[in-house]
């Protein structure tokens, strides 16, 4: 079976600095993948290259058989990229909710403006998505009135409303107070149980172990080791993976 996402030879340089040095992996539909690694290992950059928020220097990304960011051998601009980006939901470390719009409108606006739903349909969809992240009770609120954990759950609802083929999570709990991490992880766990395809950059090793099917360990812009989550985290083979996991436990 064809993989849903295929990444081959992905590299990214900022001037002379090579942040990604050739990343290859595949994600099957319904699979949950955790990207772990020390800070500066390139895992966030890798995720941001998938929907071209960062333009890769080289390499190919295919989603559902379609080449992302390149058409007829030419790089696409942001306008041409828009429909491809809409296929991938993205959740950011800093939530990035839009402060001038209500919670409902944050979730509904793209459905109207990108997918052309009517105002009523978009609102219903938004309320459905807010129910999924247990935020219906704050539908009329302004994002600034919410806690970090609540904001992140709304941001997840916003991404879900795209009906994406793939969900990208860029350190979704790193900016949260410790007591708020749990509510976001719980929502993600529920999404995982629905069989969604998820790619998660995270420092929550226990979460990765329990939720992910596979874990990829990145260091120095390369995938050092990848394998079934439990196996890789409990008995890593590579010395660098061992050192990282030892460090993170202490």
């Amino acid at each position: 079976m064809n993989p849903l996402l295929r990444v081959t030879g992905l590299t990214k340089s900022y001037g002379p600095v090579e942040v990604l040095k050739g990343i290859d992996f595949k994600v099957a539909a319904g699979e949950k993948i955790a990207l772990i690694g020390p800070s500066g290992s390139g895992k966030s950059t890798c995720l941001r290259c998938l929907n071209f928020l960062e333009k890769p220097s080289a390499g190919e990304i295919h989603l559902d058989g379609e080449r992302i960011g390149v058409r007829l051998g030419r790089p696409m601009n942001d306008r041409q990229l828009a429909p491809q980006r809409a296929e991938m939901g993205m959740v950011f470390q800093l939530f990035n909710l839009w402060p001038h719009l209500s919670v409902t409108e944050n979730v509904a606006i793209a459905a109207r403006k990108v997918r052309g739903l009517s105002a009523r349909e978009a609102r219903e969809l938004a309320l459905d998505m807010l129910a999924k992240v247990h935020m219906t009770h704050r539908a009329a609120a302004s994002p600034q009135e919410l806690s970090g954990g609540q904001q992140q759950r709304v941001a997840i609802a916003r991404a879900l409303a795209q009906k994406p083929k793939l969900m990208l999570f860029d350190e979704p709990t790193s900016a949260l107070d410790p007591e708020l991490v749990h509510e976001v992880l719980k929502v993600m766990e529920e999404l995982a149980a629905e069989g969604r395809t998820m790619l998660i950059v995270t420092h929550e090793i226990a979460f990765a172990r329990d939720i992910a099917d596979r874990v990829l360990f990145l260091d120095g812009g390369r995938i050092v080791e990848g394998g079934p989550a439990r196996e890789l985290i409990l008995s890593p083979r590579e010395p660098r993976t061992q050192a990282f996991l030892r460090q993170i436990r202490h």
Partner: protein
Amino acid sequence: MNRFIQPYVDNAGEWLPLLLEAMGKTALLSICAFALSLVFGLLLAVCRNTRWRWLERGVALYVATVRGVPLLAILFLLYFGLPGAGVTFDAFTAAVLALALAFAAQVAELFRAGLMAIPAGQREAALAVGFTPYQSFTLIVLPQVVRISIAPLIVTFVSLLKDSSLASLITVDELALTGRAMATEYFLPLQIYVAVGLCYFLIAWPFSLLSKRLAPPAAR
């Protein structure tokens, strides 16, 4: 005190219509100039953020030049100078243009500061849900810029209103010129200039209050 007040009582019937008409002219001049400076200013601010280096440099040069030259010089250049190059404006048009050109630079800087105040993540989140760059700007970035800029824009309008008095020097019959004419006619400069000052204040005061109300809490 009575000697100060009495002339107002005696002349109210003649002064009020004159002052009201002049106030109208000042308001019209200021509003036209400000509307134009909003349009110019937004264009300049957007040009300043483009990929085209030469456009960016040109705008920076324009802003620096206009800020370094007195408004009076721009006004005289347009009204007395340009006819030498075959371009003639009537006094009112010249005043509107001069004010608009000068204040567009300030408005542009305000919008630019507003644009820079919006975190990059706002636009990234917009692109990520599938918005085009145009949609990201108009639906997500611009409304936030307007919201941040509205209070300082009103402050700018008030200073434009006051600077519009310079138009009196190129014969626009607005408040300041009307005041000068009245002062000579009635030989009551003290009373008349106090009245003129009050007229400016009456237009400006509500806007000052409004800008305070609209300013974000931290700036109050």
